[in-house]
């Protein structure tokens, strides 16, 4: 069963410059589904509308046309950012609150929901432990490295347990080593928690490496160019994926399509 279904989604921005009104079509007739518990990656050229797509899916931006179905509910019209906490969103920037300690950042969603403090403490403690940041609970975000901030931003979303998590090029700005570490953590987390993940990237290797299925978007206005099932066995070779013959075959096939 698909947990997230997108049908004929279109988006155009209206840009006004000096009395002249222009329509910028960013998404055009986009349709795809994400199965429950699946890991789907979306890859597309820079500026094709990937972040826009996620903003629409998460309910921050109204679509111009089309519909979004989350767990059987079809949403159109009124916006509900996060669809009442059914969708988590890891943005391109980590967007931690700079004035809150790591501990207070992570517990933020629980605070909003009025969870009592002792319970918040326990949950935050567990999650910080899980990503190895227990000793940084009392630090401010600017005192952490980029990779650590990503981990904090990830567990801040996990703490309220949304069934679907959207991720927008979350590891784009990290070095290769940290990135692999985070890939490993993300995959093990996904397998344990059975979350449904939609992951955006502009890196083809990353897209194939993590996914059950990868969706290629074309240039703006973006629509689905093609989809690939990634039937490679797990666990995958996260460090040197290109040493794996099956991986390389698939990679080259997708690359050919991607270059078009």
């Amino acid at each position, binding site marked *: 069963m698909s947990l997230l279904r997108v049908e004929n989604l279109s988006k155009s921005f209206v840009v006004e410059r000096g009395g002249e009104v222009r329509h910028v079509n960013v998404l055009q007739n986009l349709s795809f589904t994400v199965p429950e518990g699946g890991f789907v990656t979306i890859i597309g050229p820079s500026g094709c509308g990937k972040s826009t797509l996620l903003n629409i899916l998460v309910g*921050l931006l109204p679509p111009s046309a089309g519909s979004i179905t989350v767990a059987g509910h079809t949403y159109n019209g009124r916006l509900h950012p996060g669809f009442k906490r059914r969708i988590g969103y890891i943005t391109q920037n980590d967007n931690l609150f*700079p004035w*809150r300690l790591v501990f207070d950042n992570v517990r933020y969603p629980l605070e*909003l929901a009025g969870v009592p403090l002792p319970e918040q403490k326990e949950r935050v403690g567990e999650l910080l432990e899980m990503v190895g940041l227990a000793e940084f609970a009392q630090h401010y975000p600017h005192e952490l490295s980029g990779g650590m901030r990503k981990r904090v931003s990830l567990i801040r979303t996990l703490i309220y347990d949304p069934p679907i998590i959207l991720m927008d090029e979350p590891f784009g700005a990290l070095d290769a080593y940290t990135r692999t570490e985070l890939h490993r953590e993300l995959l093990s987390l996904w397998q344990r928690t059975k979350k449904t993940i939609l992951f955006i990237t502009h890196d083809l290797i990353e897209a194939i490496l993590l996914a059950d299925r990868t969706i290629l978007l074309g240039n703006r206005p973006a629509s689905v160019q093609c989809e690939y099932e990634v039937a490679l066995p797990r666990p995958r070779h996260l460090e040197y994926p290109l040493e794996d013959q099956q991986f390389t075959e698939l990679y080259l096939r997708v690359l050919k399509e991607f270059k078009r």
Partner: protein
Amino acid sequence: MVKSARSREDPAAEVDILTAPEGSTTRTRRRLLIWVRVNSYRFIIIAFFLVLWVLASRSLGHFWVSSPLLTWQSLWALITSGDALLHIRITLFEALSGYVAGGLLGLIFAFAISRFENLAEALDPFLMTIYGIPKITLAPLFILWFGIGLLSKIYLAGLLAFFIVFFNTYAGIRGVDVELTKVARVMGATPWQVERTVVLPSCVPYVIAGLKVALPYALTAAIVGEFIASDKGIGYLIMDASGQYDTSGVFAGVVLIAVIIMLINEILKTSERRLLKWRPQEERGTTRVEDREVL
């Protein structure tokens, strides 16, 4: 605004402070070195200033420029007679009451109108006009309306504090990172929760900047009010001395004001450091301040 001396300190010493482990001897030694250096610069500046002062009073005569010694004598007389304390108390009372009330109202007003976008837009041209008016010119009117007592000075100080804090807070609210408000919404924050947990805290640096600038202005407003009509306060003290051609008395009043401002700045600096400890060091004190032509 005065730039912090930090940026001009020896960069090598700075790096060592950051990398040397907390509490290590290099770290404390370096810190001490910087302290000594900064304070000896200050000492030199003060000495230089005093020499200039003496030269000026020698060449122009004591009637025009009182000497440091004569100023000190007048000041000492004011302090021992208890007059200094009395007048300082009056002026501080006027300035601070106006500052607290005006600042608070400015803060509340900024949040109130930012919640109604159309209202903010409607008010914009009027606010900008008021922003440009030198508000101190209203002092005579205030005396006319509220009498020569303390009240007119409190209102005047309050007016200045109100506008400075209002404009700064308002700029802060407009400068809130929309990305942060968006992720907060996604995490389930209601609009009211966004206001309280995102907008308010991200405005803090702006509000503090406003409060910091507003305090000396509130003091100035009180003193200018006293210049125009009063029977108490430091402004009165200065006007009184000037009426009697007592140049040393005028100088003594100015020195009193300078000392008060210095103390106030010290207090503000410490409280700012405490409130903004979450900001990276390099960013502290960089918040743009809205204080053009505010007087």
